[in-house]
C-alpha cells in the first residue's frame, strides 16, 4: 500500500531551510561564470547573486538582491515553475541535481522578515506623474512597485476586496500561504502605493492619470458546451478556487471530485478538493503527461496526496438528476476509449477567458486579450498592459517580468512627455 501524505489546506506543504541547511545547499552551487540560472529567470531575480550571498554568509544581501529585483520574491519562491526555468538551467544538473533555488529564495525572504529588514525605499523627491494600475494581481503589483521606487504617485484599482489576484483568489494556500502573499503586498504598500478595493473601473475614473497600466488577468470561466454543463456541481476553476480561498458561504468542495485539465491550476483544484476533505479526487487530462503544461513537481505532489490522474480522455457529457452524478469521457485521440466516472463535483481547469476591458480603448485580439508588445506598449499612447490579459495566461514570474517591463515603458513615456 502506498503511503500518502496527510496535509492541511492552509499549511505550507514544503518545509523550508534553516541557516545551516541553507548554507549546505548554497555550498552545492557551482558559482558559475555568466550564470545560466540568472539568465533563466524571466523577472531578473538574479539567483546566482543571491545564492552567492548566502554562501558567503551575507543573507541580508541575498534578501536585498531578491526584493530589489522581484517585488513578489516570497510568492515566486513558492510558485515558480523552477524545473522549467532557473533550476533547469542550473549547471549542477550536469553533475547530479540542480540547486534548490526556489527554497533558497524562500529562506532569504524568510530572513528578511525575521531580521526586520526594510529594503526598498522611495526617492525623497517625488515625481509629478500619476499612474493608475487596474487590477491588483502580480503584473500590476510589479509595475506599481517599480513606478513607486522611481518616485511616481501610483494607485491600484481592484474589483475584489483584497489584493493579489490569482495569488489571493486562485493558487491553493498549501502551495502559497496567504501570509506570504500578504507580506509581498505589504512591500508594495510600504512604497506608498495606494489601493482602492471593491471598485469596478470606468473610463472616466482614469481621466486624472497621466498613464494607466492594465493588469486585470483572465477571470472569465471557460466551460465546454457539453450536455449537463449547467448542472449544480459543475465549476470553472477560477470560481471553485476563489470560493475555497475566500471560504464562501455554502461552498462545498465535493466528495467525489473530477478535475479536468493538465496545468498547475488543475492540480490546485484537485489539491484544494483533497485538502478540504474530498474522499476521491481525480485529474482527467485529454493529452499526455509530456504535453501537460503543469509542473511535474506539482503532479507528483498531487500523487503524494493520493490524487489520481487519467490521461487521454476528454469530457463528453455530464449526467445527473438535478445535480452532477457521473461524467462520460471519450478518448481524445483513441477513438475506442470510453470511460464513465461517478462524481458529485466536476471542475474545469481548462483555461480562463478574458473579460472585456471596456474602460480603455485599446486594440484587443479575437479572444479579447489586450494587444501589447513585450514592453507593455499598447495601441494607445498612455495605456500599458502585461500579464495574463496580454499573454493569455502564463506564470506569475512572467507577469512580474511583464509588469516590470511595462513600468520601464511608462517611465520612459512620462519622461518623454515631460511629466517628471
Amino acid at each position, binding site marked *: 500500500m502506498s503511503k500518502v501524505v496527510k496535509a492541511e489546506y492552509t499549511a505550507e506543504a514544503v518545509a523550508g531551510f534553516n541557516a*545551516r*541547511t541553507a548554507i549546505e545547499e548554497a555550498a552545492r552551487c557551482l558559482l558559475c*561564470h555568466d550564470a545560466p540560472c540568472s539568465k533563466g529567470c524571466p523577472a531578473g531575480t538574479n539567483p546566482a547573486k543571491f545564492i*552567492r550571498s548566502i554562501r*558567503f*554568509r551575507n543573507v*541580508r544581501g541575498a534578501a536585498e538582491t531578491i526584493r*530589489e529585483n522581484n517585488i513578489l520574491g516570497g510568492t515566486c519562491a513558492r510558485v515558480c515553475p523552477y524545473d522549467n526555468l532557473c533550476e533547469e538551467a542550473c549547471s549542477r544538473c550536469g553533475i547530479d541535481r540542480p540547486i534548490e533555488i526556489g527554497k533558497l529564495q524562500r529562506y532569504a525572504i524568510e530572513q528578511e522578515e525575521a531580521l526586520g529588514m526594510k529594503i526598498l525605499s522611495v526617492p525623497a523627491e517625488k515625481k509629478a506623474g500619476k499612474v493608475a494600475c487596474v487590477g491588483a494581481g502580480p503584473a500590476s503589483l510589479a509595475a506599481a512597485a517599480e513606478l513607486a521606487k522611481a518616485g511616481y504617485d501610483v494607485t491600484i484599482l481592484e474589483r475584489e476586496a483584497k489584493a493579489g489576484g490569482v495569488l489571493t483568489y486562485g493558487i491553493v494556500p498549501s502551495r502559497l500561504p496567504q501570509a506570504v502573499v500578504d507580506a509581498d503586498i505589504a512591500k508594495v504598500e510600504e512604497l506608498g502605493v495606494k489601493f482602492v478595493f471593491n471598485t469596478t473601473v470606468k473610463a472616466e475614473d482614469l481621466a486624472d492619470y497621466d498613464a494607466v497600466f492594465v493588469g486585470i488577468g483572465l477571470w472569465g470561466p471557460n466551460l465546454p458546451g457539453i450536455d449537463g454543463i449547467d448542472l449544480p456541481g459543475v465549476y470553472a476553476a477560477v470560481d471553485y478556487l476563489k470560493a475555497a480561498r475566500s471560504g464562501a458561504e455554502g461552498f462545498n468542495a465535493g466528495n467525489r471530485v473530477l478535475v479536468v485539465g493538465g496545468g498547475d491550476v488543475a492540480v490546485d483544484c484537485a489539491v484544494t478538493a483533497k485538502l478540504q476533505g474530498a474522499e476521491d479526487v481525480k485529474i482527467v487530462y485529454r493529452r499526455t503527461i509530456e504535453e501537460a503544461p503543469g509542473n511535474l513537481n506539482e503532479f507528483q505532489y498531487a500523487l503524494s496526496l493520493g490524487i489520481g490522474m487519467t490521461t487521454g480522455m476528454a469530457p463528453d457529457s455530464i449526467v445527473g438528476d438535478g445535480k452532477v452524478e457521473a461524467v462520460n469521457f471519450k478518448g481524445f485521440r483513441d477513438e475506442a476509449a470510453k470511460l464513465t466516472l461517478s462524481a458529485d463535483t466536476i471542475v474545469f481547469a481548462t483555461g480562463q477567458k478574458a473579460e472585456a476591458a471596456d474602460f480603455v480603448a485599446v486594440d484587443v485580439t479575437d479572444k479579447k486579450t489586450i494587444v501589447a508588445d513585450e514592453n507593455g506598449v499598447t495601441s494607445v499612447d498612455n495605456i500599458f498592459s502585461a500579464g495574463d490579459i496580454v499573454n493569455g495566461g502564463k506564470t506569475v514570474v512572467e507577469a512580474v517580468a511583464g509588469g516590470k517591463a511595462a513600468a520601464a515603458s511608462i517611465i520612459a513615456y512620462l519622461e518623454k512627455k515631460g511629466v517628471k
Partner: protein
Amino acid sequence: MAIKKDLSVTYHGKEFMNPFCLSSSPVGSNYDMVSKCYETGWGGCFYKTVGIFIADECSPRFDQTNKEGLPWLGFKNMEQISDKPTELNFEYMYKLMRDYPDHVTIPTIMGSSEEEWKQLAKMCDELGAPMIEGNFSCPQMTSSAMGSDVGTNPELVKSYCEAVTSVTKIPFIAKMTPNITTMEIPARAALAGGAAGVSTINTIKSITNIDFENMTAMPVVDGKSSISGYSGAAVKPIALRFITNLLQDEVIGKTEVSGIGGIETWRDAAEFLALGCKNVQVTTAIMQYGYRIVEDMISGMSHFMDERGYNKLDEFIGCALGNIVPAEDLNRDFKILPQFSDDKCVGCGRCYVSCYDAAHQAIDWDADKRRPSLNDKCVGCHLCLNVCPVKDCITPGEIVWKEGRQQKEIALKHKYD
C-alpha cells in the same frame, strides 16, 4: 536600495576606501588583473612580489585539501615571486597608481641581499608608492637567501628593514612568516630596523597529500614534490592566533597590522578587524571564486555595521583583542550544562557516541525513544553541542557553580550558527 556604509579606514597614513585588499600573490600580478579587481570593488592591492630574482616555475604547482566532499579547505601553492621582468612590474604598478588614484596599489618586494633590497626600495621610492611591503615569508623560494628562512632570522629581518628604510621614507611593512613559534621576535626586529608595521600570515610550510601513484607529495612534478606554503580557510585560526600575539605585544601593538589568512567572507574579515587589524589581504578565496567575492564582503560588512550601529570600522577595530586572555585568567568557577531539545532532536545519537568515546560518558541513550539525556557526569565541555548536526537542538543550559565558588553574573554565548 542596496545598503551603503562608510567602510573607509586609514592604514599607515593612507586612506583605503574599504579594508579589502589583494595579498601579494598570483591574483594581483599584472595591470589587467589588478584593474579588474579594483573595478569589482577591492580597495587595495599588495602587488605580486617583485624581486631582482626572476622565478623559474614548476608545473603543476597547486594542490588542495578537502574533507567529506568540501573542497579547498586548504590550498598548497608552490609559486614563487613574480616571473615577469622587474621593470615590467614597475610599469604596471605605475599605470595602476595613475589610473586608479583612489585605490591603493602597494608594491611587495623581496631581495636576496642588502643591495637588492636597497635597489628595489629605491625603485619603489621613484615610483612614489604609498607604502612598501617586504616579503620575509614566502616558504617556497628556490634560494635560501630569500623567503621564510629569512623571516625566521631576526638579525636578517632587521638588517634588510634597515637597508630599505635607509633609502626611502615610504612606510615599510614587513610581511611575517607563521613558520615560527614566536612571531613577536622577528616582528620586533623589523620595527627595530625601521619598519612601520607588519602584515601576516604568509603561508604555512606543508605537505597536503601523498600521491600513491608516484609515492611523493602533491602536486607531482616529474615524480617528485616539495614542501610549500599552505593557505585557505584551514589556516584562519592560525592567522588569528599570531595576530592576537602580535597585537597584544606592547611594542608591536602600537603599530598598524594588516591581517592575512583564510579570509573568504565579510565575517572572516570582521574577525581580523575585531582583533585590531586595519585591513585584510586575500588570495586563496579569489583563486577559488574570483574577485567577485568582494561584493558580498562589502555588502555583508555594511549590513553588519548597520545592524550593530557602527558608523566607521574604527568603532569596532580591536574590540575583541582585550577579551582574549591567558588560560590562567579564565573564570573556572562554573560549568554550563547542555540542554537538549527533544522536539528538534532527530535521534541520530552522535552526541551520545562522542560523549562516551571522547568525553565523560555523561549522556544516557534511550534506545526506544532514540533520545539523549544528561546524567550527573557532565563537565560542561559542549562536545555534544559541537557534534550535533541539528541547528539549535543542543544549546547552553543551566549554569552550575563549583562547590564553594562565588556566584556572579557571567557573559554567555546564546546564538550558534
